């Protein structure tokens, strides 16, 4: 149908669109929410990249990234609540 390159480009554009909120803020939580969404979208991008290169082992990279992104967001959220 449309082809994998187009999808990759579209997802990258969506990531850039959420990057707007990281720049604008205005509060820290706004930026964090945007980062959370960005990491989620990036995980999808990585999975699609694995298909682009036809390497199944790249899926592991996406999973590690998902784990680390989750932990990062949780750490910041707990910090906002007051102390870790």
């Amino acid at each position, binding site marked *: 149908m449309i082809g994998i390159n187009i999808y990759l480009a579209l997802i990258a554009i969506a990531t850039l669109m959420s990057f707007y909120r990281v720049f604008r803020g205005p509060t820290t939580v706004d930026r964090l929410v945007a980062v959370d*969404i960005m990491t989620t979208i990036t995980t999808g991008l990585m999975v699609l990249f694995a298909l682009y290169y036809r390497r199944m082992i790249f899926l592991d990279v996406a999973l590690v990234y998902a784990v680390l992104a*989750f932990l990062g967001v949780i750490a910041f959220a707990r*910090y906002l609540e007051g102390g870790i």
Partner: protein
Amino acid sequence: MNAVSALGELLVLFGVFFYFLSALGLIRMPDVYNRMQTATKSATLGSLGVIIGTGIWAVGKGLYWGWITKSIVIAVFILLTNPISAHALIRGAYKSGIPLWKGSVVDRYREALKEKEGGEE
């Protein structure tokens, strides 16, 4: 182009659409709580679509069947963790004192917190 890979590609397209929706929600909504409302849901569903779609698409292209199981693992992980991180973030936002949007109608949480403090004193 067989039916399986067409289904996978369709799912990917579906997911990409929701990714866009989530980014758009992030830009358009007025305050952080509403942004979280719109962005988290559509990003999670979009990920489900893209990731499982990629697995099905790969199998349809004649790659190893393990693609689909592994993509299911990633999808389930995201399905489990994304709401948790959204919950932690919104709780952190509230606790760090960000006010609700001016058009909000009711705030039971503040009442409950006050009640709790009053009970302790």
